[in-house]
């Protein structure tokens, strides 16, 4: 029978065993999700800032679309990437299906709207405060982007963490485009699904505890860095 007791002891035993397969899975999870968040940030931060600064026809449509895409079901994102990367699909030549790269692409698609939409909000608020001073200095809107992003950095850290949370927690997309191949594309979340389907619930929950612990640790580190910097810089 499953009790939370033996899930915790399973988790603890897993961690203590330093099982190399488990370490590979954890490392792959982190690599895929961190890389996806990094790539998404490189695109979404300037995109969100630009959306905050420029007024153009259809801007509201773009904002609503981004906000809606924050709720894009991972399975749908996964399916789209699957059809794109499948041999019969437009990018089939690249042979990326069932690779970590495919998983990363799917997660970029999931994370990008979150970071872009929330960056837009943060930068718009900050721009409200800075606009007159920056205009007085004669900055172009393009030149304002790095200034505003840098000054919004503490808020944006939280935004990026939200993106990381989505990436590391989702399973629907990576399952479809990665295929949960042992040793190649198996990550924490797909392992949890697999163990659940085997009825090995304490193992599944144990893996869940490890995933949660890792995500908590990353958030705690980021939070500490942010708080320290905020206290110093006001």
């Amino acid at each position, binding site marked *: 029978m499953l009790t939370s007791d033996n899930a915790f002891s399973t988790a603890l035993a897993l961690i203590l065993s330093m099982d190399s397969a488990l370490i590979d899975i954890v490392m792959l999870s982190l690599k895929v999700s961190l890389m996806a968040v990094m790539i998404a940030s490189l695109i979404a931060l300037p995109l969100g800032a630009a959306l905050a600064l420029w007024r153009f026809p259809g801007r509201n449509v773009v904002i609503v679309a981004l906000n809606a895409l924050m709720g894009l079901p991972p399975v749908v994102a996964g399916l789209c990437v699957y059809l794109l990367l499948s041999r019969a699909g437009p990018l089939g030549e690249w042979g990326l299906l069932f690779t970590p790269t495919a998983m990363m692409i799917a997660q970029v698609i999931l994370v990008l709207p979150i970071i872009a939409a929330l960056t837009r909000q943060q930068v718009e608020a900050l721009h409200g*405060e*800075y606009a*007159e*001073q920056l*205009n*007085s*200095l*004669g*900055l172009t809107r393009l*030149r304002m982007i790095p*200034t505003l992003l*840098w*000054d919004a*950095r503490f808020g944006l850290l939280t935004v990026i963490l939200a993106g990381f949370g989505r990436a590391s927690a989702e399973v629907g997309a990576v399952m479809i485009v990665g295929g949960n191949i042992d040793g190649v594309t198996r990550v924490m979340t797909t392992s949890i699904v697999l163990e659940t389907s085997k009825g090995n619930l304490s193992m599944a929950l144990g893996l869940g505890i490890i995933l949660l612990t890792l995500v908590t640790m990353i958030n705690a580190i980021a939070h500490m860095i942010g708080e320290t910097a905020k206290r*110093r*810089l*006001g």
Partner: protein
Amino acid sequence: MNAHHTPPVATLELDRVDFIHRGHTLLKPTSLRLAGCQRTLIMGPNGAGKSLLMRLAHGLLTPTTGSVRWQGAQPAQAMVFQRPVLLRRSALDNLTYVLAIKKASRPELKAIPRKAQAMSALEKFGLAHLAKRPARVLSGGEQQRLALARAWLLNPQVLFLDEPTSALDPAAIKAVEDAVLEFHRSGTRIVMTTHDLHQARRLANDVLFMHNGELLEHSPANDFFTAPSSREAAAFIRGELVW
């Protein structure tokens, strides 16, 4: 005064400028000529349109109708706000930032590196010991002095100041007023709003008096304080409530 030795300041002309926002006329049609290296104080009660007029002159706002023109080349300008907007970085970095952005320097500092230019500005405004401190944790007076140091580095021909002392204690007010005079001595035209009559008496040699979105007077400071031409200005000077 050094002012005579620096090149003449370009003249600003406002030609029937008005400003209408959502159907409300915030500034009635105004024509105005600001010539020479003066210390012009814009006075009037709250809501008179002082800040609005200044923003139109500085180019932060575009008039609904009418035109704002500089005779000759547009001069270097800077503005200091009631609540200084400082970036989330050290005092020193706030200054090197504008030097990098504007690629401008004061002529006497041109030869030295940006960081040294910024340090000299901090020294000038008594902030050298705070160079490494984050700008946003400085006191109100220190922040306003940093904003002035930032403007100083831009070597403006025209400096706009919007109620720069309204939130400061007397010592800090004194520092800001000294800085304004120092700017002027070095050849910078001053355009400043205030609702503090005593401050205006200390600083102005030229006064604009506004009331209810309308420019009622533009006269030399002596004339304005001794013989104001409008009923509202006279009441304002007597310290009565005007609205």
